[in-house]
């Protein structure tokens, strides 16, 4: 028969181990500490013609440094533009009013994120509630559109001939190298 005292102590240690694990998962593994620090900030909006695969909580970077997150995405009914709300780190107060926002892709297949390029306005800076208009934004580059544009360009340059259609296979592959 185990003493009730021992039982209580070990159960207490067990629960503490659980809480420590949760702390480790939230702080060290999921980086909640950064997230918590970044959550307060000011919100600006940006209009895009096409946001591609951008998602909420996507990164907002300036010169490759993460300075905020995408906090909201909605459709603007008059212009059929997408209005994206960005939450910017409150320390970054010096974004010029004519800053450009473009949606880029991390690597060839990676996530979409928003990259900001500072403008030249030395006196007016973006603050809570400001909007980056659609003229100052670059939409997402959709890979499929690029590919089809490229193919269309190729097709118009050289008309199809029987020789070009045949697959060029001068080298035979050997199995197992």
């Amino acid at each position, binding site marked *: 028969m*185990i003493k*009730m005292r021992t*039982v*209580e102590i*070990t*159960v207490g*240690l*067990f*629960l503490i*181990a*659980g809480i*420590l*694990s*949760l702390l*480790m*998962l*939230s702080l*060290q*593994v*999921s*980086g*909640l500490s*950064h*997230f918590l620090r970044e959550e307060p900030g000011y919100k600006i909006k940006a209009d895009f013609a096409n946001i591609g695969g951008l*998602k909420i*909580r996507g990164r907002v970077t300036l010169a490759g440094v993460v300075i905020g997150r995408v906090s909201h995405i909605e459709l603007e009914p008059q212009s059929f533009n997408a209005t994206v709300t960005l939450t910017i780190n409150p320390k970054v107060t010096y974004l010029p009013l004519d800053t450009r926002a473009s949606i880029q892709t991390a690597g060839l297949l990676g996530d979409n994120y928003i990259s900001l390029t500072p403008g030249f306005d030395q006196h007016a800076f973006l603050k809570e509630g400001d909007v980056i208009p659609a003229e100052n934004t670059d939409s997402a580059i959709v890979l499929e559109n690029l590919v089809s544009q490229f193919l269309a360009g190729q097709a118009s340059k050289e008309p199809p001939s029987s020789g070009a259609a045949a697959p060029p296979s001068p080298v035979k592959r050997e199995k197992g190298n």
Partner: protein
Amino acid sequence: MIVRRIQALGRSGLAFVQDAGHTSLFLFNSLVGRPDFIHGTERLIKQLYFVGVLSLLIITLSGLFIGMVLALQGYTTLVKFGAEQALGQLIALSLVRELGPVVGALLFAGRAGSALTAEIGLMKSSEQLSSMEMMGVDPLKRVIAPRFWAGQIAMPVLSLIFTAVAILGGYMVGVEWLGVDSGAFWANMQAAVDFDTDVVNGIIKSIVFGTVVTWIAVYQGIECEPTAEGIGRATTRTVVYSSLATLGLDFFLTAVMFGDT
């Protein structure tokens, strides 16, 4: 011939519905009702000891090994693409989303679930439950409820510990042994793992698995045939049913939680 087949199908369908109703009523009865906080807490702690603390050894050891193997396998694959920096991400995502809750639940079913079934089955076959009933004490509240709640609490805790230990194991192999950069290991992990989707969903999964495994375990215990063979069969059924339920539910939960991203 065909009519008989249909009849058999109908009969098994009815039996299934009856069974499902019976088990739900059983669960409901064992949890609802006047809880006794003073004695209840003491009993709960005792059961937490049996269900949680005693499962700790197998959970930490398995977690350590699984994390180490993940790091080793992940590294050999990733290094071919020059992407060994992403090792932390690979380990953390697979553990937090899937392996922590699922392997944790499978181990829990094997260690604590089978023990619960055997213990309750033994109490039934030695007439302890009947005699409790004859003393005017409801065994569902006195015996089943604390065990159920203990399993319910212990499972997420065990799964968290499992995941944390496994990530540390992966760190040991990946960083200390194979030489992945420590900063990149953690930074990629933190960039990839989201608290409110990945970690929280993992915890939700483990709570669901905890409920299901403990439920199956206590139900099999109390419904088992009160003989030595009956207890053995019920214990086997606990492990089989709860493993299948865990894996099936995991697919369903994953589809709901991560299916749209």
